């Protein structure tokens, strides 16, 4: 029952953090709110006894990536007057909620009817480095390898779209 309580806590925090990311006006508040989501997700992974993913989530996402994002936001030094005016924000949110509500209802129905809703935690060092590594390099080799192309392309994209413009060579 303690685990159930923790699950509810983390799930609610994750959703609230994500909502905050969208709703806060200043990017810094949004980023801080997103940190909450990432840490709650790490908590959810820990509840599933996915040790490695839990650690990676904290170190890579909540740690490295978020500190970079916060650093960039601070670097840009955004003042309240730099932000765009958001008129009729409440009305927009309300309208969007009404449109999305049926889909949300549909999703709740789906999730409630998923099989294996109550399962025992797997023992046998599930979620440790070795089992995850074996799974990644045996069953999921193709997606794992092609992700490297994806990262390469996004790296090039960041350089080309945001990097310093080279002199055009004719």
């Amino acid at each position, binding site marked *: 029952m303690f685990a159930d309580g923790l699950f509810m806590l983390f799930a609610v925090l994750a959703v609230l953090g994500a909502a905050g990311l969208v709703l806060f006006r200043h990017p810094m508040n949004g980023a801080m709110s997103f940190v909450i989501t990432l840490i709650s997700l790490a908590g959810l992974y820990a509840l599933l006894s996915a040790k490695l993913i839990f650690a990676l989530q904290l170190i890579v996402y909540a740690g490295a990536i978020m500190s970079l994002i916060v650093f960039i936001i601070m670097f840009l030094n955004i003042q309240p007057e730099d932000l765009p005016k958001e008129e009729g924000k409440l009305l927009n949110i309300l309208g969007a909620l009404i449109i999305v509500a049926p889909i949300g209802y549909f999703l709740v129905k*789906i999730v409630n009817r998923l099989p294996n809703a109550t399962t025992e935690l797997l023992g046998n060092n599930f979620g440790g480095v070795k089992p995850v590594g074996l799974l990644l390099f045996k069953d999921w080799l*193709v997606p794992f390898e*092609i992700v490297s192309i994806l990262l*390469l392309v996004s790296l*090039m*994209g960041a350089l*080309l779209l945001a990097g310093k413009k080279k002199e*055009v060579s*004719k």
Partner: protein
Amino acid sequence: MTNDLMLLLPLIIVGVGAIALMLASAYKIINNTSAALGSALVFAVAFLVQLSFCLKGNAVLFSDTFNGILVANTFSKGAGLVILACGLFTSLSSQTYFKQNDFCSPEYYSLTVFAASGMLLLTMTQELISAFVALEIMSLAIYILVGYNRKNVVAAEAVLKYLMLGAFAGAFLTMGTAFVYGQTGTTQFAKIGQYIAANGFTQSPAIIGGAFFILVAFLFKAAAFPFHAWVIDVYDGASMPITGYMATGLKTAIFAVFANFLVADAQLHAGWITFLFYVSVLTMFAGNLIAIGQYSLKRMLAASGIVHSGYLLIALVAVSTEAFSGAVIAYYLAAYAAGTLGIFSALSYLSGKDEKRVTFDDFKGLAKVRPYSAAAISIFLLSMAGIPPTAGFMGKFYIITSAIDAGQVTLAVLGIISSVISMWYYLRLIINMYFYEAEESFADTVPSSLASACTFALAFCVFAISLYPLAI
């Protein structure tokens, strides 16, 4: 084992070629022209390697190591050929295009090849997570190519719109995958099919919901109604050759994975027939309505791309899950790609500096000044409209007959009506080119170039493809 390696070779060539081009573009000695020729060489070699194997037969590539994720079947090989040809013609016409537009750097060609590697993966993959990664490889490379001209505000708007909406589509695909995995415990198409065959499609809401979200993501990328709104602006903002590439190569890859997913099980396909029926009808007519109202040639072609997605959806409705070969879809994609790429490579050398000729009126009297180019453009337009003896006619013919064979007579009739409506905007350009006096001399266009060579080669292809009928 060796056979598997050979079947994987086009993908390996394209991947290695992309990385080599990326590294090479760091050196000063590589200029835009040599990068263009390099990427064209990569595409040409990969195309010939793909062509040199027998197209028939299915093979699960390295079924132990890759765990059955990559499959090379007749359909994926055919779609791969179309994609590689699209890449080849895009690289060559880009070379001419960038003689008059100066925002190119050698990395542009490397990204074109990277996008093709994502597309090839997408045609071969039989698993949802790999499909997601491959889709993102393709999309990310295309986003960058769309926004390549950083000084152009329209391009910046296009890339922002595409990136945001594309991220939504990616999120839907992930969500759908999660639901399907939650119900079936697998993400492989074949095993999902087995699960549905054993337990029934309508018995589990998670599969219905999951498949719905996955379909939404594919329909978004294929620019089907009601997810077509982004297409016009994005195609308008991208440079000419990239617009052609997006309209052909990207669409081929998406329809390949779409068809592969749908034929996983007969019940899965049957469950979505009504939905796809309405989507395809609305896509055809919404696309036609949008295309009729356009003054810009590029926007008209974008809208006509929506209509062609509608025809391809007819083929998806009519596809048979038992003996799936995808021949009709691959044939139509090849025919459509020849026509569309042809017109975009013609526009690459005719549109002039900074794409100053973009509207219908700008091409008035082209036939008087450049008779051969005008004739080639007319051939492409007639092929897209579906006039015999072009490839477009044969493609539409196969789609309509397959729809009638599958008992979808209403859909076939609506397809023919939509095809008649589409004459309006295709013939409009032909009339503008032939029945007006020339207002300008088109003197600033590059006279003999790779893009014009591509145009005439593709005009030949339009007829050649129509002479290569399918054995249905």
